[in-house]
């Protein structure tokens, strides 16, 4: 059998020599510079905690999230409704 024919058939089995120990460790390693650059620029350490102030930062964001605003809303609605009811009562039925 012809030699080139044998090589072509085996070519599907034998992978091409792209990465050898010599080409990776030896030489300048210039092909890896963009990769190294990318990783060196990533931020280090734990993620910064957001410290936005205001009502939103105090009651709604991250670990500060509570159901307290719900209770405040209910109390406010109760207060408003009671006020309206109180005045309506006095307007219609003067004592």
């Amino acid at each position: 059998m012809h030699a080139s024919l044998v090589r072509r058939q085996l070519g599907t089995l034998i992978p091409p020599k792209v990465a050898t120990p010599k080409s990776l460790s030896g030489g300048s390693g210039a092909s890896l510079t963009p990769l190294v650059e990318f990783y060196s620029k990533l931020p280090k350490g734990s993620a910064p905690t957001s410290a936005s102030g205001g009502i939103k930062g105090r009651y709604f964001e991250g670990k500060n999230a509570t159901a307290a605003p719900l209770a405040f809303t209910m109390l406010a609605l109760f207060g408003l409704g009671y006020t309206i009811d109180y005045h309506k009562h006095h307007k219609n039925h003067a004592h």
Partner: protein
Amino acid sequence: MTQNLTQILILNSPLEQFEVTSLIGLNAPIFGYLNLTLTNLALYSILVLFLIISLHYIANNNSRLVPSKWSIALESSFASVNSMVREQIGSLNEMYLPFIYSLFFFILIANLTGNVPYSYTITTSIIVTLSLSFTILIGVTILGLSIHKIKFFSYFIPSGTPLALVPLLVLIELLSYSARAFSLGIRLFANMTAGHTLLKILSTFLLQMFSASVIVAVLTLIPFAIFMALIGLELAVSFIQSYVFCILTCSYIRDAIELH
């Protein structure tokens, strides 16, 4: 005496809470007696709008990836409405999601706001619920007409009808189609009104029993526990009614798109 009695009766009427009353009014002899009035219905509608917008503003998590507990709650309710729209109208018609979502949150927040004592429930006004359902039915009819043109009217003739029965069946189908506009609104109105009336009547009884004597007051704690359970039921009804309203709206939209 009689006047006193009527006053007491008016004061204690369990239906008094549904009255639309004027809070601030302007009645000026300009533009042919212009009458601008802020009623409690208007005030609470504005409040509901404010609550919905502030909930969505405050729970938006500043577009961060990791959600706060508030945005988890909002996202999961969005996911529920989204899956409802996908199941009912179909994934190809997800363009109706914003409508259903707004409808759901409007009715839900309106119902929940009304559960606070002394506040006013806008969904116990039949004008609110019927306006919603009539608007939906008119919109759905326009949608069906614009998609199917003249073939939309085949909706009123069930397939396989003998020709002799067509006039009768068209009348029946037309009636059932337009009855939807009423049933959708009245369902929400009646459920909310009935619940609030019941709570008002029971709380009037409870107040009188609590203020009778010490022993009766202690014994009244048992019916009071049932009353608390009924408040929980009312909260559940608030959710269920908004869900039912949305799911029926979805099915009406699907009917208009698919014609059976």
